[in-house]
């Protein structure tokens, strides 16, 4: 018997381990760099647990099959990168509208288009939120280490189940392929959330009716005896389509509000040395690793700098960003894009403090020295 469960693994592998720990028993995917290992490892591991893996004909189909699997009661996941994430948007919208719990991993690479397939980027932040058309709910989490990839994958499944929403795990190529030490938690130490289901003999079950005290409607699995209808059209509480303006208004508000009214429960973040500082760095994913080092370097030089690292990228952590903005003279948002999360920070913080941006889109990482230079420059 091993006393501990310490392993060396890459982020993509930790993602699959986290998914399995969360109860994943269905995966549909399509090969794409730099996420392919997630499909490969899932194909190897799932049947050993009695789970199912299928490689679909394209990214659109793999998103569709993921939703189909989830409708039968499975905990379902798919994984992709930029070009595939674009293709999946159609059915991500469907999952938002029909409230199908599922997890979509997007290992970000350089874009647009085929871009830089083997290089890291963080250019899909806005796409994760607005990639599919219409106002819709979405949650996106972005891990910053291999260990955190395991934990946030578990969390992604839990949030998907709890809020009946597609959850995007927004990784980047560095986190996906970097190998780090990770201690796999014991099964009993991992919190698992399952979707709420209707009582077995509930004759009054309406597929899209939220019961008093619940956040979402209970979800029956296809085949269990509740013969209900699921559609991407605007629908009423029975699940059937409607053109009624009042019903449309009520539905879309309910879908968006179930996330917006529960941001505290969905919030994951780290504050690093944020007491008594003048400059705040906001950074996430692999870039936050450089930012953390830059904070230490700056502190050593006597500069009062700290880091705020959102793990929950969507919904935006408005409260935390505003609170910190009120306390500092300037904020530097460091990210591997031309200013995407920075737009959110500017929206929230610019009336309290200066907001600067440090971006990079050439496929190289942002280094601690680059961040330190920016701190000194501003």
């Amino acid at each position, binding site marked *: 018997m091993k006393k501990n469960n310490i392993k060396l693994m890459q982020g993509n592998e930790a993602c699959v381990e986290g998914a399995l720990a969360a109860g994943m028993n*269905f995966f549909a995917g399509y090969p794409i760099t730099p996420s392919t290992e997630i499909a490969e490892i899932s194909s190897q591991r799932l*049947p*050993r647990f009695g789970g199912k893996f299928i490689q679909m004909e*394209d990214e659109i*189909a793999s998103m*569709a099959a993921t939703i*189909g699997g989830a409708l039968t009661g499975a905990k379902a996941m798919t994984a992709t990168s930029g070009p595939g994430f674009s293709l999946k948007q159609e059915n991500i919208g*469907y999952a938002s509208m029909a409230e199908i719990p599922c997890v979509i991993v997007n290992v970000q690479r350089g874009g647009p288009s085929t871009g830089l397939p083997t290089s890291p980027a963080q250019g899909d932040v806005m796409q994760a939120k607005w990639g599919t058309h219409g106002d819709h709910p979405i949650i996106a989490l972005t891990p910053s280490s291999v260990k955190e990839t395991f934990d946030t994958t578990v969390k992604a499944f839990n949030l998907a189940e709890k809020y009946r929403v597609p959850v995007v795990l927004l990784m980047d190529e560095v986190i996906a392929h970097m190998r780090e030490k990770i201690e796999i938690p014991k099964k009993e130490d991992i919190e698992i959330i399952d979707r709420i289901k209707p009582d077995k003999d509930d004759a009054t079950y309406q597929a899209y009716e939220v019961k008093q005290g619940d956040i979402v409607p209970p979800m029956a699995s296809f085949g*269990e005896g509740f013969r209900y209808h*699921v559609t991407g059209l605007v629908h009423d509480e029975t699940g059937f389509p409607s053109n009624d303006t009042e019903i449309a208004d009520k539905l879309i508000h309910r879908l968006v509000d179930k996330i917006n009214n529960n941001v505290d429960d969905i919030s994951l973040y780290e504050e690093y040395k944020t007491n008594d500082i003048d400059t705040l760095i906001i950074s996430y994913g692999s870039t936050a690793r450089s930012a953390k080092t830059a904070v230490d370097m700056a502190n050593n030089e006597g500069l009062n700098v700290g880091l705020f690292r959102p793990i929950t990228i969507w919904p935006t952590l408005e409260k935390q960003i505003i609170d910190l903005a009120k306390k500092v003279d300037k904020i530097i948002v460091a990210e591997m894009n031309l200013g995407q999360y920075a737009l959110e920070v500017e929206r929230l913080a610019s009336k309290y403090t200066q907001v600067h941006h440090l971006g990079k889109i050439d496929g190289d990482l942002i280094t601690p020295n680059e961040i330190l230079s920016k701190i000194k420059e501003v």
Partner: protein
Amino acid sequence: MSNKLAKKYFRMDKLPHIWCPGCGHGILMRSVIQAIDNLGLNKDKVCVVSGIGCSSRAPGYLDFNTLHTTHGRALAFATGIKMANPDLHVIVVTGDGDSAAIGGNHLIHAARRNIDITTVVFNNNIYGMTGGQYSPTTPTGDKGTTAPYGNIDKNFDLCKLAKGAGSTYTGRATAYHANLITKLVQKGIENKGFSFIEALSVCPTYYGRKNKKGDASDMMKHLKDASINVKAAKNKANEELEDKIIIGELYKSQEPEYTEQYKRIINRFKKER
């Protein structure tokens, strides 16, 4: 329709349906129901999945587990359902644009896998829901609102396409031959593998009007007159069959079914864990 059959399988409160007067889809939907009734399937274990278009509204009226998905993707959703729970009878109701244009890739790959899904294409030779644009099955030369001077595309033979891609049970009939549709769907459901039934419909509102095909009864009469059973067709010369609709059981073969094969992988490797 017998009231008994309707009450047993329809969501009566969702009727009347949205289809135009004279549309062939109602007959086809009834034929599908009859096949399910003949087989005595447990309603709780039947999933009817559709995409987008006129045909794809059918599941909403039916008292099963029903899924109205995105345009062209019905077979991809259905594949996920069947893969995750092979105990379910999965039936896809789709149209010519839905299955053969935007969903063409999903069609050929579902057929290739020989996954146990029965696909019924309600083929009305036109995009009806959007108002009469030409589809992959609009005959060459015919008109649509986006082919005002006649369609120059060659139209698909959907059954040949399905067979070529690997469908193990393939047949064709028309809204005029309602009983044959029932028989083909029934055999398709019984086939352990991918089954493909092309069900020719009529669209008097758009295709008929645009191409001066007369009213609904004229179009139904055309389906009757132009059809020839595959057995009778065997004795005819190719020239004689040129404008004919060949109906009946067209192609059958035996291949391993996809979810059964996956189950074997699970049984083999689950032990070695």
